């Protein structure tokens, strides 16, 4: 699945934050150097994630969304959609699910 922002898009936003907002404030030479090293490591992660981005994107999600928009909501749809949202949350915000227990 390639939910937006995709993993490389998120990494890119962190790289911009580190380079644009953090790096200019660092006066300690050692910290500057280590931040540059960290940014370089993140760039490697970025490129590897771009390579692995699935080609067949969110076609299934689009189809399901269009069906619901047309009013075609068979029994069990909420449970199915909820399971999918839960799977996304386990990546994006796993602790949030605990607040429902």
């Amino acid at each position: 699945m390639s939910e937006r922002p995709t993993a490389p898009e998120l990494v890119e936003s962190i790289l911009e934050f580190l380079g644009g907002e953090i790096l200019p404030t660092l006066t300690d030479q050692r910290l500057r150097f280590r931040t540059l090293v960290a940014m370089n490591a993140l760039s490697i992660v970025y490129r590897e994630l771009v390579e692995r981005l699935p080609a067949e994107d969110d076609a299934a999600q689009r189809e399901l969304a269009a069906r619901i928009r047309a009013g075609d909501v068979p029994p069990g749809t909420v449970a199915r959609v909820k399971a999918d949202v839960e799977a996304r949350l386990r990546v994006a915000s796993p602790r949030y699910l605990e607040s429902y227990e």
Partner: protein
Amino acid sequence: MIAEMREALQSVLGTDLSEPVLLAGGASKEAWAVDAGGRKLLVRRAAVGVIHKHTLSLEHEFAVLEAAYEAGVKAPRPVQYIADLDGREAFVMERLEGETIGRRIVRMEPVPPQLPEQMAEELAKIHAIPRERLPFLEEARLERMIEEFDEVGEPRPAIELGLWWLREHRPPPREPVVVHGDYRIGNLVVAPDGLRGVLDWEFVHVDDPVRDLAFALVRAWRFGVPEKRLGGIGDAEPYLERYNELTGLDVRPEELDYWELAGNVGWAIGCLTQMRRHLSGRDRSVELATLGRLGAEVEYEICTLLERVAA
């Protein structure tokens, strides 16, 4: 820049001022604290971006604040609108003392017990402001959410399910009134003795009053206290009862449930439009990017509410 602004402010207000301190510099607005003698003031000044296309201009926001203050709503006293303050639009209001951070309000010990009723009282006063007093206000329809969602263009079946249920179960429309548009704990000033004031008037428009009433129930704004349905500070019942008592509207709990779901759907879409600001390059920000993924929390709540109404 601070020196220029202070000078410009001094000449407009005709009084000596302390050095302005920047409290918050968002993409759309700056907030400066400044003191004039013993008077504590707050300057809201335009920044570069616009957070939302339906945001009021600072001139209109000031007019709204004046109308609310005249109507007896607890709000900062408006002082002056300034069309050009060192190059940008701004207005000055008095600064209220108290807690404005939602996460801290829900953790006050104790949370002022009268807060739910007080929230209902202020909202009832806002809803009674005559529409004619603010002729520039736009009327919002529920359909606006769908337009915003379609502009983002991301497939989100959970949001579609929420929209579908809202279409199928719409309560009879109520007479539209002046609404706050962002009425929740994070936009209040609270002190140990209770509610001091209502802030953030930039989303005021004309709409269904119950939609405005239910907004404070949305789970995303309970600040880590999800079991307290009213913004993490209390139960919905005393809030609803007091509102009904003051307005005579006889809002039923099911109607509140309906608009709570609508508030969640609106915020789930809001997360996507914020993400789009980043992806489009208009406002690059790791916070906005992350919000795109955190929208899944709101989608989960939508599914949970749908299961509840179906049961």
